[in-house]
């Protein structure tokens, strides 16, 4: 691996599910490369943004089929990797944070043990070392009293704390790439900002790459470096996050216009009229 190899190369990624009326394609030819940066993938429900994130980890459930001209992580072909090799990569090299901590944490295991387990699976550390590292990680995601929280069960912590615990668990094996699928949508705005600040710092301190999947245009524009806008399984536009307001594609412009804004007088919002041509462009 050289410095020139991108962290992730995706070329012509397709995800299809068989239905009674033939194959339904959820992702239809997505291509991008990712360096050590924060890439946002934005789209409405059903646009294929989550499936794109999942297919990188080969987490698309059967009978879904993933194909791509190239899907490579650090130059290694992920589609050709054995299940054993994929288990090695998942968590250790590429980690994923899901939307809702309520459904992603094991309800009958203390959060500390879950984080320590994530560390021990991917290293040869003993129990004491794993616990020490888990406590460090809880402190890194700014949990005030790590010792106390370590022995809590998931139902005893708030949503914001649960999401920080998820992030601690995902980051403890020190991955190179983090895929975050709506990591803050279940949180209050102020907590959301605090969780994003943690992700932001960890990205810049560790030189980690990140794919941030979200439906929230403004949030992605203010948080990420670069944005892909997806519509019906395709990338219709990609731009630097700071230039989103100058987006050219009518879908992106329509989405931006349909957002209510605090500083605008009340009145009818422009409604998106969907052009069938967008399906192909």
């Amino acid at each position, binding site marked *: 691996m050289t410095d020139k190899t991108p962290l992730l190369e995706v070329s012509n990624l397709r995800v299809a599910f068989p239905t009674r009326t033939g194959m339904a394609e959820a992702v239809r030819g997505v291509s991008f490369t990712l360096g050590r940066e924060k890439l946002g993938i934005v789209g409405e429900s059903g646009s294929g943004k989550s499936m794109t994130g999942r297919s990188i980890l080969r987490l698309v459930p059967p009978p879904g089929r993933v194909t791509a001209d190239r899907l490579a992580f650090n130059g290694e072909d992920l589609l050709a990797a054995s299940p054993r090799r994929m288990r090695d990569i998942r968590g250790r090299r590429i980690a994923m944070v899901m939307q809702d901590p309520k459904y992603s944490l094991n309800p009958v295991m203390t959060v500390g043990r879950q984080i320590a387990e994530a560390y021990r699976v991917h290293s040869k550390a003993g129990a004491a070392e794993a616990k020490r590292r888990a406590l460090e990680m809880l402190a890194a995601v700014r949990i005030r009293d790590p010792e106390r929280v370590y022995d809590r069960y998931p139902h005893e912590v708030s949503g914001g704390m649960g999401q920080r615990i998820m992030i601690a668990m995902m980051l403890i094996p020190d991955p190179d790439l983090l895929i975050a699928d709506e990591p803050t949508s279940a949180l209050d705005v*102020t907590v959301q900002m605090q969780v994003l600040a943690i992700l932001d710092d960890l990205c810049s301190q560790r030189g980690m790459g990140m794919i941030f999947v979200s*439906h929230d*245009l403004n949030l992605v524009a*203010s948080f990420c470096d670069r944005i892909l806008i997806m519509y019906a399984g395709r990338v219709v536009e990609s731009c630097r996050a700071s230039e989103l307001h100058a987006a050219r594609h009518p879908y992106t412009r329509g989405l931006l216009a349909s*957002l*209510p804004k605090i500083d605008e007088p*009340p009145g009818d919002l422009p409604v998106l009229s969907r052009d069938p041509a967008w399906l192909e462009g």
Partner: protein
Amino acid sequence: MIDIQDLRVSFGDGGDAVTAVDGITLSVREGESFGLVGESGSGKSTVLRAVSGLNDDWTGRIAVAGADQGPKRQKAFYKLCQMVFQDPYGSLHPRHTVDRILAEPIAIHGLDDADARIDRVLRDVGLGPAFRFRYPHQLSGGQRQRVAIARALVLEPRVLLLDEPTSALDVSVQAEILNLLRRLRAEHGLTLVLVTHNLAVVANLCDRLAVMNRGRLVEEMTVEELRRGAAREPYTLQLLRASLGYDRATAESFRDYA
């Protein structure tokens, strides 16, 4: 139209008791669109549920259209005041057609001419008669929310209570529902109470708002003041800053307000 004085709601007993609403006083004028804003656990939905009669364990005074309300409501109250819920995937009966969903309130209240009423209300929410015999699973999220609004409107109420009516929807669909609510309010002279965490939605649809935190009313302001960022309380200002998007330095400045 709605007068609330010193409303208190708590859940649980003794040492486990949680006070969700801790002495709220506010009033909503006839024809006004009023926003109730706060983060999760602020008690905003609990206030709405107490007003609507879904929560009967409260103390204080609630008056709607000049009449004091007790914990149990009369049937006439629901003719006057209807509610729309957050999740149109959960609030419609999955095995009832749109027709049956809309016919039920008409039958309960013994109104005549169900057929014409259903037809009219479906047109009113922009769905048209083609949707009348479909099941909820055959509808998109936005169409379902239109059915939920139609169900509330079919009784021709004067007050509509809305609990996060657009937060389960995509932004393009949210715009359609907000436009629909604005038009319905103008056409029917409705009084709206909108509970939401989204300040931009309030700015778009409401005239006045109240900000809640931990069961208490932090401040009341007009939407005009909100638009100028002219909040007086630090909690409201923090909420406003958080709504503007991510900023590393701003995130650092956030604190808890008790």
